[in-house]
């Protein structure tokens, strides 16, 4: 017979928040949070440097002339690193996601490219695409979230 003590112990046992606060808490939170961080941090940019979006980081030691990996270039830079000389760091705050406005502009432009690059469009469709492109260009210049929603509804 399960009594009140058992129930109580179950509650105390299971409801403890300490349960799985384990070292492997490699949550995805950071990358999802970034969708919000741009907006949140932009208001405070003055105190922590301008907020900008990084594209693809390239480890500095092994960057070659064309951005590809190069052991030779890396070796030269490594000699400097052996001295533990201080490295320069940008004052800008970099995130993996662009600012909301930039993201909106990018997705609009990308959408436009996708439409125009489709080879199967008929003439009528192409005209429609051109019309949309014109509309999008106008929106890009004076875009607001509301206008974007209207465009999507089309």
């Amino acid at each position, binding site marked *: 017979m399960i009594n009140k003590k058992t129930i109580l112990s179950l509650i105390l046992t299971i409801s403890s928040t300490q349960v799985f*606060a384990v070292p492997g808490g490699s949550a995805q939170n950071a990358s999802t949070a970034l969708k919000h961080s741009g907006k949140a941090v932009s208001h405070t940019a003055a105190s922590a440097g301008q907020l900008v979006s990084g594209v693809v980081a390239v480890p500095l030691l092994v960057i070659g002339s064309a951005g590809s990996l190069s052991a030779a270039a890396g070796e030269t830079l490594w000699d400097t690193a052996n001295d533990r000389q201080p490295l320069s760091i940008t004052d800008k705050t970099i995130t993996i996601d662009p600012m909301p406005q930039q993201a909106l502009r990018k997705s609009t432009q990308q959408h436009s490219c996708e439409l125009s690059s489709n080879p199967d469009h008929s003439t009528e469709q192409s005209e429609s695409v051109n019309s949309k492109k014109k509309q999008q260009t106008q929106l890009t210049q004076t875009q607001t979230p509301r206008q974007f929603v209207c465009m999507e509804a089309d």
Partner: protein
Amino acid sequence: MINNSLKSHLKQNAMKNGVFLLSVMLTLMMSSVWAGSARIEKSILDPDKVSIFAKNVEKYAAAQGARVFIIARVGRPPNDLPKNIKFTHTAIAVYSAIPLDTGETVNGYAIYNLYQTEDKLDKSHLVVDYPIDFFWSAYDLKAGIIIPSMDLQKRLLETIASENYKDLHNPKYSAISNPFNSKFQNCTEFVLDIINAAIYQTTDAKRLKRNAKAYFKPQRLKINKLKLFFGNIFMADISTKDHNRKIYTSTFSTIASYLERNAMTEDILIYNQDGNLTRL
């Protein structure tokens, strides 16, 4: 008499059902406790403070001349952390040239992470992000920092910049993965695997695990058996299949000890919000 017996039987069943429902409810609650850590979309702390802190950590590491360092954050309320666990997420920061979407290229640290996949909690994927992203959901503005020896930094950089980096990733995720086998992998085990791949110049999983078992001392997690039982059943990101009776896993601190024992560190410290440095 029959009525009394029936009542007693029904009461007993109701009690059993109640306990079952309670268990399920609490287990789900437990699950949400964990998931709360996994899917936070808002900064726990003041974004301004997080931003400044992240930049200060970067500047500190750069001032030390660190090309590559191991970085950790506190992703759970400090009071909830089990004994001997100081950090919940570990990754590797690499000094990089970072092209911006403005066309400009700047220097800073990019952070190489294994992250749990948001909609498939038993899976993970690799993400390169930046310090503010890394600390965005921290509960406490403390950074664990291990600056490896220059030789190891160089090896780590070569490993991360090579195709081997992706080969070291095992997408099967368990938050309490056993570092001595390849059944599952969490963020910290991934870092350990990268370190050993860099040291031994191999991606041979069997060799990496064999050497880990020989030289690496993991952290024992003392988790209540009942909690573990329910977690194993109901939580996709908790598995004991890769463990024997006792649970051992890798942590930021055990990686620090491993490197220190083998004379492969320049510095091991905690960078605090006020800029003070403390020993791990």
